């Protein structure tokens, strides 16, 4: 049975490291894995998405509507943008951070401030302030790893394996910050 995970956010937020970590971990666990992302135009502050699929044998590299077991969103508006891709019974893990898109910045439209509560009425949402937790870990750039820590709760892979995979993808001088960020995400409770 193929599992589908989506990592969504705003171009430049560091989703690449998150998908690299996840890919390496899943390969090590012996799964067939496909990770798909789009480069180029969309990376310049636009909405970005990475698809991760794994199982005994994975065919399609992309995730479609109603197919994702879990969506990890780096920004709350992006969680709403991609919610149609969530499978019935799936979980959205989202950072509560707000990043105004250009139509909001220039006043053409408003940021829907109640978007998280509306989402929570429709699907299971696990929301956390990953930016604050990342800063607590020692770097605002570790938002991606905080969210991976949160994802670890959803997957049936031992905590130590995640730590091993982190050591493979993070430079040694940043590993302590990232291990802490991962733990903060994993252990977070409201």
């Amino acid at each position, binding site marked *: 049975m193929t599992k589908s995970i989506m990592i969504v956010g*705003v*171009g430049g937020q560091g989703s690449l490291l998150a998908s690299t970590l996840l*890919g*390496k971990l899943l*390969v090590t666990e012996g799964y*067939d*894995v*496909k*990770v*798909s*992302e*789009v*480069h*180029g*135009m*969309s*990376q*310049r*502050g*636009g*909405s970005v998405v990475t698809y991760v699929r794994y199982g005994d044998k*994975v*065919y*399609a*590299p*992309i995730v*479609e*509507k*109603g*197919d994702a077991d879990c969506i990890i969103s780096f920004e709350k*508006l*992006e969680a*709403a*943008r991609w*919610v*149609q*891709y*969530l*499978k*019935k019974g799936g979980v959205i893990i989202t950072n509560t951070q707000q990043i*105004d*898109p*250009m*139509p*909001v*910045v*220039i*006043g*053409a*439209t*408003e*940021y*829907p401030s*109640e*978007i998280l509560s*509306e*989402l929570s009425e*429709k*699907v299971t949402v696990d929301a956390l302030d990953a930016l604050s937790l990342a800063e607590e870990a020692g770097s*605002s750039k570790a938002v991606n790893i905080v969210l991976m820590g949160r994802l670890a709760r959803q997957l049936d892979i031992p905590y130590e394996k995640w730590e091993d995979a982190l050591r493979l993808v993070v430079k040694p001088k940043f590993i302590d910050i990232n291990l802490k960020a991962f733990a903060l995400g994993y252990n977070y409770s409201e």
Partner: protein
Amino acid sequence: MKELLIGNAAVARGLYEAGCSIVSSYPGTPSTEITEFAAKYDDIYCEWAPNEKVAMEVAFGASVRGKRTCCCMKHVGLNVAADPLFTLSYTGVNGGLVICVADDPGMHSSQNEQDSRHYAQASKVPMLEPSDSKEALEFTKLAFELSEEFDTPVFIRMCTRVAHSQSIVETSERVLPEDKPYEKNPQKFIMVPANAKLRHPVVEQRTLDLTAYAETAEINREEYADSEFGIITSGTCYQYVKEVFGESVSVLKLGMVNPMPVERIRNFADKVKKVYIVEELDGIIETHVKNLGIECTGKEMFTNIGELSQLSVATAFGMDMPEFASVDTNVPGRPPVMCAGCPHRGMYYTLAKNKITVLGDIGCYTLGAMPPPNALDTTLCMGASVSGLHGYNKAGGKDTEGKTVCVIGDSTFMHSGITGLVNISYNASNSTVIILDNSITGMTGHQQNPTTGYNIKGDPAAKIDLETLCKAVGINRVRVVDPYDLAQCDAVLKEELSAQEPSVIISRRPCVLLKSVKLKPALTVCKEDCKSCKMCMKLGCPAISMHEGKADIDATLCVGCGVCTQLCKFDAIKDGGEC
């Protein structure tokens, strides 16, 4: 060894293992990483050529000398390289020659979604189409063997979903092919009419030979199941078909999409009651199958616009949409934007302020078309801004000269802007060309180019001097401005537009994302000084927004470029800590 690689890295690995020794390419999404990954292997000489035509001709020369060689480009790059392509088909090769072309169905980062398979058919060059990274590696190696066996260039057709998807590959060691010394052979390599007339029948025979190969080739594969109907497909569409049907339907997977087999398709069609064709973009397999007199269903079920997916395949076959949730709230779009501190912003602000008509080009600066600054009027293809400006001014005369410019990046100018500038000079239009020189090829992810002073490896290289180049083609008025200096941009723009001869303005400042660029501390808005006039908002800087009626600068995005400071009439924008 097993590795998780994106398709483009797998092609690069295939180049390495096949003993390819020369790669020349021009960057273009989604093909760029092939050459970037190939450049990591010290055994392969790699370069960024100024454009795809040059790259393909470099590959031709390297092949004539007897080396295995490759050139890579995006689908529209193949238009630029079409001239050498069609005759390269006639000459054939000495060392194996592989052309990697990456299509972009859905136009994630492209100006059209042309289907490169048309080129394979038109130029009579074989084309292999991998469906994942494993095949990308294997097919690349096979392509060199076919190239040398059948004396032809060979296409590898990638698409975004294969190029940028990671999947597991099995790697092996590099094997160098036997050296093939160059032997003079005018009838093969000098394509004048007398020789080309002899080569054309060779090309036609080659297609027959390749068709015979396709009848038994392992890269074309039947997967029979106990099903009523059968599907003929290729590339990423094969993955969608398998995702939907698993082992429950008969499939003929074409690894070689040009030329296609005849007897194998007849046999496959005989074994199933109904044949469906699943292919992205144009109905090329479908046309081939129908030309064989075989009934099939293709484009009447599947669109020729954009990408397919497992969902579009499933619903086309009448399956239900899965359940999914959605929100009632309107979710604002999040289009890509020019980065905070982008050097293009100051020049675009100046052009918009002066209500200038702007012919645009291809690169990050195409984002200047978005509001604000909403500054562009056209975008066609690489280099078209310069040549288009000349045509626009020839048509408009005094009505448009002085009110119209074109903008083109440094890399795009080297790619195909120079010839347009030669035309402006030679055929004398009073045109003003603005080169947005950010000292890098930006949109594709920071590739070096002939104006940067570095090669693909990051080693120092000859640096083309844009001022000297423009003067050499006959432009007397060449000005350089700093786009962070709005007053200077405005003054120079007005001077050059009022001049009665062609001119070039080089708007020069390196891309703010370059590691070599030292960023300044973030600026802040002193709330008590902000009069909410929103002048700073006209820049369209993602770091500036209005909060509770006052301008606000996001310190995590701001790089202190100071362009907004120049617009604020109330001196409300200050260095961090001054408020």
